[in-house]
């Protein structure tokens, strides 16, 4: 079943004057099509200058996060049939815009780098795999599904207010390693996430949980980090 939709898109074309405007495009889409299909169709048939990121087109690469009808989501995972006829699209909030729906994610990635985002274990590895029980693996199961699309951090009011805040995505990454039984750098990571820009700034607003396209309960993970930090005496950065 095909239907007309109006895509109202916030444009930012820095080489034009004025550089900012809203454009409306009316296009026909079928009930299986996604917002990303609509954007592609507009670019292909109406305005080649319309710019957005895309790659996998089925919710695993994290390229096409944007604000759709007021909520951060993946354009490739949002079916138009689930939206009203007027679809309003903006870039992810609170990051510098490069062009149209493409934001500069440098700050976002930098937060991630601050939590030592890699497995650290300097003990000589055994000949075979390190043993990890299914129960222990399940502790990190949700956190390893993060695709780093940026939806969570850019929906967080604390991040909006202070770009120094590590934000939900980076904290989730810290969780992923802290709760991995194979990792040995818990204290270093706790020191990094318990300072003034770390976990204590999370006020459990749950915006991140609401927007996460992988349905990760990020706030719950941050709460677990807080509990561990208290237990280990990391209440204000350094022990």
């Amino acid at each position, binding site marked *: 079943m095909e239907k007309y939709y109006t895509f109202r898109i916030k444009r930012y*074309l*820095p*080489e034009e004057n004025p550089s900012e405007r809203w454009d409306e495009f009316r296009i026909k889409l079928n009930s*299986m099509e996604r917002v990303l299909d609509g954007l592609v169709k507009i*670019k*292909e*048939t109406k*305005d*080649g*200058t319309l*710019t*957005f990121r*895309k*790659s*996998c*087109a*089925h*919710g*695993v*690469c*994290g*390229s096409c996060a944007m604000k759709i009808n007021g909520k951060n989501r993946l354009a490739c*995972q949002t*079916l138009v049939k689930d939206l009203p006829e007027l679809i309003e699209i903006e870039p992810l909030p609170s990051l510098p815009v*490069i*062009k149209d729906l*493409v934001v500069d*994610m440098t700050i976002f*990635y930098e937060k991630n*780098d601050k939590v030592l*985002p*890699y*497995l*650290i*274990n300097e003990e000589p*590895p055994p*000949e*075979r*795999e*390190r*043993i*990890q*029980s*299914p129960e*222990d*693996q399940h502790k*990190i*199961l949700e956190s*390893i*599904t993060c*695709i*780093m699309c940026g939806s969570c951090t850019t929906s967080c009011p604390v991040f909006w207010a202070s770009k120094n805040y590590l934000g939900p995505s980076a904290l989730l990454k810290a969780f992923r*390693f802290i709760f*991995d039984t*194979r*990792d040995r750098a818990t204290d270093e990571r706790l020191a990094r996430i318990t300072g003034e820009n770390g976990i204590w700034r999370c006020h459990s607003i749950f915006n991140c949980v609401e927007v996460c396209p992988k349905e990760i309960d990020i706030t719950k993970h941050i709460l677990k980090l807080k509990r561990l930090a208290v237990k280990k005496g990391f209440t204000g950065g350094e022990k």
Partner: protein
Amino acid sequence: MEINKHYFDTVIIGSGLAGCRAAIECIGNGSVAVLSKLYPTRSHSTAAQGGIGAALGNEEEDSPEWHTYDTVKGSDFLGDQDAIEIMCYDAIPTIIELEHMGVPFSRTPEGKIAQRRFGGHTREFGKAPVRRACYSADRTGHAVLFALYEQCQLKGVKFFQEFQVLDIVVEGDTVQGIIAMNIKDSSIHVFEAKAVIIASGGYGKIFKVTSNAYASTGECLSMLFRQGLPLEDMEFFQFHPTGLYGLGILITEGARGEGGILINGKGERFMERYAPTIKDLAPRDMVSRAILTEIREGRGIDGKDYVYLDLRHVDKKILEERLPEITTFCKIYMGVDPSESPIPIVPTAHYAMGGIPTDIDGRVLKDVDGSIVYGLYAAGECACVSVHGANRLGCNSLLDTVVFGRRAGKSASSTLRTATKGGVKKERIQIVVDCINMIKNSNGREIVASVRKDLQAAMMDKCSVFRTEEGLKSLLEEIKQLKERYKEISIKDKSSRFNTELLDAVELGHMLTLSEAITASALQRTESRGAHYREDYPKRDDENWLKHTFVFLTDKGINFKFKPVKITRFKPEERKY
């Protein structure tokens, strides 16, 4: 135009599994840069679902010898057995190393890496399916890619993200470096190097229905081909049996590994007729042909052009724990809950067996005699070692990327001390810049999307699972016409900031070149083998065609040479499952 110059000992194109694994190998031996046209973790490796193969024997008895045999047989005896043996024996330490690097594999009750069944993987040389695919639920590619990228970060690999490669510069017998564009501002960057490793992935986007990402367009292969370097076995392109109907989104073979079955419109488990021993877990070429045969003969669902993948009888807990991602895909995109309804599926363009010919150490070959391009390496889907021959087995691609990514990195590093620094000439840069400006300044009447759509539709129609001489010949004509139309394309976006329309145009030119190489290769191979099925030549013909195709672009057009298959242990036999 201002040119930004960089020097790195090793430059790697692509930040998927092969690129990241190569980078880890190179970083201790000199400076390394990795270029990606995306942000690294968005590389298409991340979409791999089902598993990575290794005869760990964690769940039941297994051996690398059986793995080798299965891969040889799966390749329809076109794979080079020396390379296959290396891969299957290296698989075990490779997976263990990945685990040590932090890959969050799913676990057995004893805490070992969990393994499951996959198509074409058997015990005792074909007797029954074996649990060989190591997995992290159905997000294995994502789990491995993140771990490798994280290790690259730990070791200080320098990434140039959102850089589009425009040319790979080979002068004489030696690579000099690459020319790339920073997508953010269209600035031109020249990377001179001693070694260049191409790990740019596949090119499924030349087909209309594909599991591949938008980024999988294959320009790096075309760049070499246009310089007169060969591509190998391009006629072999894999169609994955289970793509979501109408979308092509991948539903892992692991779904059948966990007990899923295929059923036709009459409710029959039709794979029993095509592969009586391993049924739904037959190799992908056979299952894809079986599905399309059922559909052609009117046994699709309600006589339509799809069949069902049925998971209703699979334990809900298994769906939740081992197949959560595909369960979600079905719900989101099809409105189908696999525990309650069967999933409509149809084959989808998935994987290129062919590619840049290399030896077992990733060195790029410039001819069938084994001569190489100094300093140039390739690994992963863009390369053809050949371990997959005419048909790749599921969970062997991730393995290929990591094993040969490492080997390419190692051999690149080992020659750094004696290699000379590459130099990219001004004239060469000027040609690239002129090409870009030509696209930007064109006033032609064609648009990129229209040419691309026609190409994708034609390739799907005439060069997919079933092929004929007539179809391929008319396809070659169509591609010629599309190339003429391509000369007339113009773009609306003339800006220098994040100009994706310009990049689409650049990619399309290369897609046309590659499509021609594929179609011509398919036309000349007058036999059926693995994924290449010629309706007019339905039998495998070992007497004439047990050899690799090398396709070249010469002044006089497309030309072919052939390289014998390396056969060590397993003599070609009839392929039955």
